[in-house]
């Protein structure tokens, strides 16, 4: 068989060596790191924060956000958010794919909308109808069976129109009649005269249709915890999918208030931070940092997430991956020759005490050892 010439045949170092044992070094490393981690765990533990924010109640470690927590601590926010979910006026309702068919909502670059392409391939994979999934369906299932008033209110509301199909566009979720009721009630809720408790709402009389009864029932099922069971459950199986609840909660303002108070808001380097003084995902500095770049206009850029995602693919993935072959980037170690410090002992032991200056673009050196360092003379 003809011998192929390999570009990089297996090579062996023929210069100075020193004793070493791979197994010993690996074992020592595992023991040392394990002890360090046990020490750090004993001294500092790990973060398991709850829902703390100025003016908020004491929160047990590890507490998650829930509809019950929301209702107890900010029933006004829950009520106003629920009204907007019925009206199709929330962030979730207008999100576009993969949650709904709202047109023109997904982010784009040079006319390309990756979320729309994904929808064309996979379909609408996480369909949400905010009016039905967050308000009408749970109220119908949890409150209406035991309350003829609520059942009648839901029937009256549904009879007034609106598209309650999964993933309906934001603009079709409520009919004109429903929008009249909802807009009137939203103004009443925002008025200073509105009074809230976790289970009741008092506003001035007005043309609200069945909306106050439905929103009152929403607060009631949030307060008794059954709304959380509904949002985290499933009609058929046990569920580990927390998407519906998370999307509903994030449409409110309490959600963001807690995040900002804990220093994990988007304008606070977001997901890179951890609670209190714990180190977080520091390695996401590039990702979190891009959301702070003024040139990307973070406060008023509808395509910010897509811009950051693409920049991350470019600078966080492709650039480091192919750095050795990118002209200029691969010269940085020559311009900032830290290797001379790292290898100073080795270079000092060589004849002349200096590293041979050979640029990567120059022809490769001869494969035979130089006369100054014959293999047989190498210290073993």
């Amino acid at each position, binding site marked *: 068989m003809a011998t192929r010439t390999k570009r990089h045949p297996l090579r062996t170092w023929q210069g100075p060596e020193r004793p070493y044992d791979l197994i010993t070094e690996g074992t020592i490393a595992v023991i040392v790191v394990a002890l360090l981690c046990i020490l750090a765990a004993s001294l500092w533990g790990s973060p398991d924060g709850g829902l703390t924010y100025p003016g908020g109640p004491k929160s047990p470690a590890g507490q998650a956000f829930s509809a019950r927590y929301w209702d107890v601590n900010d029933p006004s926010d829950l009520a106003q958010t629920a009204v907007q979910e019925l009206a199709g006026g929330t962030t979730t309702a207008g999100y576009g794919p993969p949650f709904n068919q709202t047109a023109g909502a997904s982010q784009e670059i040079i006319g390309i909308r990756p*979320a729309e392409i994904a929808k064309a391939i996979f379909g609408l994979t996480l369909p949400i109808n905010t009016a039905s999934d967050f308000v009408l369906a749970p109220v119908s299932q949890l409150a209406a069976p035991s309350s003829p008033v609520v059942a009648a209110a839901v029937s009256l509301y549904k009879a007034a129109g609106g598209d309650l199909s999964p993933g309906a566009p934001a603009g079709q979720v409520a009919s004109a009649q429903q929008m009249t009721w909802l807009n009137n009630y939203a103004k009443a809720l925002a008025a200073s005269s509105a009074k809230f408790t976790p289970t009741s709402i008092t506003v001035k009389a007005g043309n609200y249709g069945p909306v106050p009864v439905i929103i009152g029932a929403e607060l009631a099922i949030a307060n008794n915890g059954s709304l959380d069971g509904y949002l985290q459950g499933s009609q058929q199986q046990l569920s580990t999918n927390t998407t519906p609840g998370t999307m509903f909660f994030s449409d409110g303002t309490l959600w963001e208030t807690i995040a900002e108070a804990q220093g994990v808001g988007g304008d606070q380097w977001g997901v890179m931070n951890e609670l209190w003084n714990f180190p977080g995902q520091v390695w996401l500095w590039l990702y979190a940092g891009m959301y702070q770049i003024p040139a990307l206009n973070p406060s008023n850029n509808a395509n910010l997430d897509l811009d950051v995602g693409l920049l991350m693919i470019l600078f966080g993935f492709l650039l480091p991956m192919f750095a050795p072959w990118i002209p200029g980037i691969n010269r940085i170690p020559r311009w900032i020759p830290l290797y001379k410090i790292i290898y100073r002992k080795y270079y000092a032991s060589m004849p002349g005490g200096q590293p041979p200056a050979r640029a990567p673009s120059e022809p490769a050196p001869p494969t035979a050892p130089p006369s100054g360092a014959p293999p047989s003379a190498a210290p073993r």
Partner: protein
Amino acid sequence: MANATGAEPFSLARPSPWLRGYLVRNYPLRKLLPDREPAYVSSVLYTMGVLTLAALIVAVISGAVIALGGVSFWHTNSFGAFMNSIHFWSVQAMFLFMAVHFITNFFTMGWRGGRGWTWITGVLAFILSILTSFTGFLIMTNWDSQWVGQQAKDAFNALGIGAIWNMMDAGQQITMHVVFTTALLLFIVSVHVGLIRRRGVAPPPGAEALEVPEDQLTPQPTT
């Protein structure tokens, strides 16, 4: 069965002799389990790779204990909480060591001498480590994980990935963290370590000539 010579041709019908020869040729035992190393590997910076690997091992073991207890048990069980703390700090240690390892290899141009794939698998391991730790933050079953998932979904959705990878689906993220990204990471790290054993670490710039092809080696006296 004949001993492998390293020159066996590839055959789809009988690939084993070729694979045997490939392994013998590229992964001789003296490279896999060495008891000597080049003298220039005397800097503490060269321990960063093995320390990263050690931290990964601690993370996998502590993570396996947490996973065995169930996704939420660490909130209510003091042993689980302690394991979670070890897991947390091992990941922090791993990224610290990995960052120094990464920067060192960039400034020593560790890709020289046919070590391009070693560099590429190293960067891949770094990116997979980020994805793995990220999915770990998504399955803490507390407010923190809710917030991280809700925030991160926007970039994934904007790129179209969110249609099949939903940050807010705790069940999917448990699979992603405990099985998928970890398995991928361990595979890539295995390839990375294998390539390092095969090629060794790059010699100091200017000393490349002291790396001699196998077929040009001068026989060494047995010590």
